[in-house]
């Protein structure tokens, strides 16, 4: 079974986020970056499926970036992926969701796979629209938010989380899956994995090589960021020491009445 996992490097969620006032883009250099947490779950799912399927199963990681950020892929390779493809091209700078999905789909067409696993959201921009867009571009059935995945009779049997519970879904391969955060904790890279990752291949491609019909980057985007600002600050509020239950409750109740919430 051949599995492709898409991964992205995102700013450390605990770090201060900054947008360059000139380019209006998120500053990604000089900021601690991590593998998008959602993608680690996608990779964990792929590695488990590979282990279960055995044989000549392979996991390829794919990433797209305006800059050649190989660390993302190196970490994924250290976790156990077999090889990697990186679409790195300065021409991708400023791509919105539409242009991003268009470029990723074109690059993925160069890979052969039975299953494409994508993180459910990205930690930095969180539109959640890329998985659906990729499925549409590639003509794949799309099962999102999977928490249990099995391959049965050459097809997928998936338990996926919904807003109110779960669904059991059956779909043929090839298919696109996204993983839920309840799938199971992603593994840590072992020392052996980290050493081994250095020898694994990271192939690269460029926008030019994809021979796209439509532009990507800022020119190919269908949205335009006009302005951004931090939200109005929420000042530190009042603190009340409650000697007992009744006085604590009364303090909250009075406050809610003052705010006209009760």
């Amino acid at each position: 079974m051949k599995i492709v996992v898409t991964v992205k490097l995102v700013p450390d969620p605990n770090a201060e986020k900054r947008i360059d006032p000139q380019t209006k883009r998120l500053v990604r250099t000089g900021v601690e970056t991590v593998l998008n947490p959602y993608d680690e779950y996608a990779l964990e799912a792929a590695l488990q499926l590979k282990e279960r399927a055995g044989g000549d199963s392979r996991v390829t990681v794919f990433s797209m970036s305006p800059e050649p950020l190989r660390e993302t892929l190196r970490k994924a390779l250290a976790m156990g992926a077999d090889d990697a493809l990186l679409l790195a091209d300065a021409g991708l700078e400023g791509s919105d969701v539409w242009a991003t999905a268009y470029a990723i789909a074109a690059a993925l067409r160069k890979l052969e796979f039975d299953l494409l696993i994508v993180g459910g959201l990205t930690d930095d921009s969180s539109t959640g629209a890329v998985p659906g867009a990729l499925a549409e571009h590639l003509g794949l059935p799309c099962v999102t938010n999977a928490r249990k995945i099995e391959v049965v009779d050459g097809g997928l049997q998936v338990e996926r989380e919904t807003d109110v519970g779960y669904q059991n879904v059956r779909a043929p391969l090839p298919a696109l899956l996204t993983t839920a955060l309840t799938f199971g904790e992603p593994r840590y890279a072992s020392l052996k994995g980290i050493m081994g990752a250095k020898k694994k291949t990271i192939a690269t491609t460029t926008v030019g090589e994809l021979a796209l019909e439509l532009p990507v980057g800022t020119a190919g985007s269908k949205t335009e960021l006009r302005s951004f600002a931090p939200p109005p600050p929420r000042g530190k509020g009042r603190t009340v020491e409650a000697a007992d239950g009744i006085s604590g409750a009364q303090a909250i109740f009075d406050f809610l009445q003052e705010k006209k919430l009760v």
Partner: protein
Amino acid sequence: MKHVLVFAEHRQGKTRKVTFELATEARRIADQLGGKAFAVVLGSGAKQLADELKSYPLDAVYVSDDSAVDQFLLEPVVDYLEAAAKTIGPSLILIPNTLSGRDVAGRLIVRLGAGIVADVVEVNVEDGAVLCISPKLGGALVTDCALRPAEYGIATVRPSAFAAARGGSGATVITLEKLAKSYVAAIEQDVEEGATEMALEEAPAVVAGGRGLGGPEPFDTLLKPLATALGGAVGASRAAADAGWVPYNLQIGQTGKTVTPKLYIAVGISGAIQHKVGMRASGTIVAINKDAAAPIAEFSDLLVVGDAFRIVPELTKLIEKVKGNLS
């Protein structure tokens, strides 16, 4: 973009509140664009919901009760939405920013060659251009993003961002022609669990518990009665979900849900950044904590330092007396 089309998400005819919010907002935007406001309702129970939508200010509601919508995963929904969008012509499509909403929107941008702005909380029209305000990076920044001029544009809209108001003179209900297509991703079983009577993202009040509660029982015995008295829902921090005290669909924060209720009450939650990003845009934040130095003090409007196990039941009694209900 001239008209506005709302995807009316529902579950077997049980409406999501966000549908009425979008129907109301659609009218306002359509008037500014000089177009009409429409909605699409699909699947089992669609006709019933279309009737409910007649009391909202829409021009027409497109309906299909094709059973494929309930039997297969979202592809039929995308097909019918595409058909409706192409019937009405150039339009802004409003889709709830929910799990299914995001999946549908992703597919639809490719079908319609449309730009998308996600998690929108405000829509403005300036010289015929559609501008969307949305928080990014867990609320650390608020962005103003334009949909470039095109036939179609999509906004996934945050539940509770807009108020629902009835009005209009009764929308026409139009049945969409049945599509003769075959689908492959089959829903074999659809199960509700976790007894979430009210979707967390749509609740006007959220009472959330964390590590300080010490176990699963207080979520039912302590938080549930307070949430019910307020007409709201119970949520949890990641610590509580990781400990297995509550199902993950109640988790609020970076790796869980983002909520923006009018009132957020955090009980025994320290307020780590991972939790903060999921709730900091709430209207009013009240925290009950044993520790006056907990990080949540920095972004609460009121912090009560004390014993939650004694305070919450008393507070519930006080609120029950005035029948507090924020909805």
